[in-house]
């Protein structure tokens, strides 16, 4: 799971896809995931980091991360 190189993200969780002009907002957890994706972290690393920061079970989060990934994929911002 990798963000396209030219996709811009802000500290507020705003995502801009310069290829299409689309822009999106995410909640704070989404923003944290994007930061980790930008750092080329693996899915395992992301699950660890998020479960450490937020009160969520790894199994539950893995499912949510999968949904989030599908959304990012639908919006054509994943490589």
């Amino acid at each position, binding site marked *: 799971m990798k963000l396209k190189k*030219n996709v*811009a993200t802000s500290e507020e969780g705003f995502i*801009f896809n*310069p*290829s*299409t*002009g689309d822009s999106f907002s995410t909640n704070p957890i989404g923003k944290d995931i994007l930061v980790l994706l930008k750092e080329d972290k693996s899915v395992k690393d992301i699950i660890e980091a998020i479960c450490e920061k937020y009160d969520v079970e790894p199994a539950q989060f893995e499912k949510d991360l999968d949904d989030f990934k599908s959304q990012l994929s639908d919006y054509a911002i994943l490589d």
Partner: protein
Amino acid sequence: MDMEKPTNQQRQLVIAVTALNAIDSPGPGVAVIRAIRECPDFDVRIIGLSYEALEPGIYMHDVVDKTYQIPYPSAGTDSLFGRLLHIHEIEKIDVLIPNFDAELFNFIKLRDKLKALGIHTFLPDLEQFEARDKMKLFEFGKKHGLHVPADRVIFSSRDLPSVASQMGYPMVVKGKFYDAIIANTLEQAEKAFYKIQAKWGLPIIVQEFINGTEINIAALGDGEGNAISVIPMRKLYITDKGKAWAGITLEEQSFIDLAKTFIKATKWKGGCELEVMQTSDGKSYIMEVNPRFPAWIYLTAAAGQNQPASLVKLALGEKLKPYTDYEVGKIFIRYAWDHITNIAEFQKISGTGEL
């Protein structure tokens, strides 16, 4: 390119510009002037050329220094040339930039005569102009390997059922210069046919409907096959007339390559706008090629590639290197503003044809 660097000596130029109708479906003139005025290399006097007394640019005195009315395109080239000759005797025009589709044919015809007077233009020749014509675009696309939706040129509404049986619904009914209406039924297609015929005459073009994301590309060709500037833009807000009220510059090499292919194939000379539809499978269809700058052309200057100022330089014989960079994510948001003037000004332009 050192376009944005101030020079020690600004070149003094008189530049004539048409399409001052900065209305809800705006002409590009005011945006072209704004971009030219921002170029630090020029000190310009802008001469507006208008058709109607209520074109807003006429009354914007910080934009246009002096306006002259010119005859409608239907009056022909002799009448236009006579008027331009008179204006040139007073103003000594260096560069003339026409911006309306409907007037371009006459200006292209007059290109050489204007040049003999010292009035520089930077326009495509008739062959280039006609290659991108709506009525020939499909053939053009086929010849150069570009995706263009299928179309049929018709002169009678009686042809609509047979066109519809080939294309299916929805289909797009278009005027030869402007307007496009999506029709989902024969009844809607007939209504669109007559509406557009009443406004723009015959023929009518019926085009295959392509579903996708609309992208517009402003480009400037040097007449030798090089694209001096290409800026792709996606409309963020569209009016009921289909015009962009807000838009954003994009970073997408395939759009830039598409415009470069078009310019190389046609050796396009001057500004143009490619209207492109990108389908969900990533194909880019050229829906239309407008043979002049679009109304949103100031965005090119704001993003770092001042196309109108570059056109002025090309018209004056300068060789320019193609731009390579621009700012992605630059947004324009158009707004409406009630400009106040007085009856004396309206009376002057209406009565004397000058303001």
